[in-house]
């Protein structure tokens, strides 16, 4: 009997004390201001992180060594209600243009001038693709990649 294991979509909902317009603006234009510096890719520290303000725009970061790192792109740009991003970083946090996982953020007004933020990261079953066994190295990140590789293989079984 084969068993299919699909990782559930990551969902987060919370309320912020701001209008949807401001929440959308801070999420996108202000992305660099809030994105945790620890959540970076590349060999050098994170310098800037950017979401370009249009459908088809790039989602990328610049590290202190002057190297740009693509993360994905903007699939839908619908201020202030909805942002849909393609997250194309695989289990090794390496960019793979053929990988598609979706990050959707919805901003809805609620009472008191606040905004309900509904966040989803879906398509996680595809995260292991492209992370070949030949790229498996030692260390925590690599252990993570290996787990995702094996996860992918298990999911596909």
């Amino acid at each position, binding site marked *: 009997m084969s*068993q299919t*294991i699909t*990782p*559930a979509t*990551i969902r*987060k909902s*919370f309320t*912020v*004390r*701001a*209008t949807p*317009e*401001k*929440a959308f*603006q*801070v*999420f996108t234009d*202000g992305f660099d*201001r*809030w*994105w*945790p510096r*620890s*959540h970076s890719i590349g060999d050098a520290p994170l310098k800037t992180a950017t979401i370009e303000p249009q459908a088809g725009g790039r989602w990328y970061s610049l590290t202190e060594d002057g190297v740009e790192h693509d993360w994905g792109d903007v699939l839908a740009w619908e201020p202030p209600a909805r942002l849909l991003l393609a997250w194309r970083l695989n289990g090794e946090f390496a960019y793979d243009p053929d990988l598609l996982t979706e990050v959707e953020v919805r901003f809805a007004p609620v009472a008191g001038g606040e905004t309900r*933020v509904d*966040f989803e*990261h879906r398509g*996680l079953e595809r995260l292991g693709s492209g992370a070949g*066994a030949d790229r*498996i190295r*030692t260390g*925590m990140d690599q*252990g*993570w990649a*290996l*787990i*995702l*590789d*094996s*996860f*992918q*293989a*298990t999911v596909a*079984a």
Partner: protein
Amino acid sequence: MANNLAFAALADPTRREVFERLGRGPQAVGDLARGLPVSRPAVSQHLKVLKSAGLVIDRPDGARRVYQIDPQGLGQIRAWLDRFWDEALDAFKAEVERAPDADSTPKDRDEP
């Protein structure tokens, strides 16, 4: 933390190889040992470590024991991504509520 234990368990190259092979499907110890440059008792020992790290589970299959990747262990991996976003979105919420409203400050306000 469970993930740290999992990563530590995978720090050994032979153990990674054993785990990777299980990623292709459930296998008995004897099948796993074949093609690996280590003894069967050594493979058993590696499986014991992977099992205690929550990465694999075993079940009896006749006289053999069959090992497979633990789906609950995979749940820990999703949990890692889940925490990743928790941290990022907490930072987003803090920034939204910290930043002055756009209509009360210059639109092109920059960080110092």
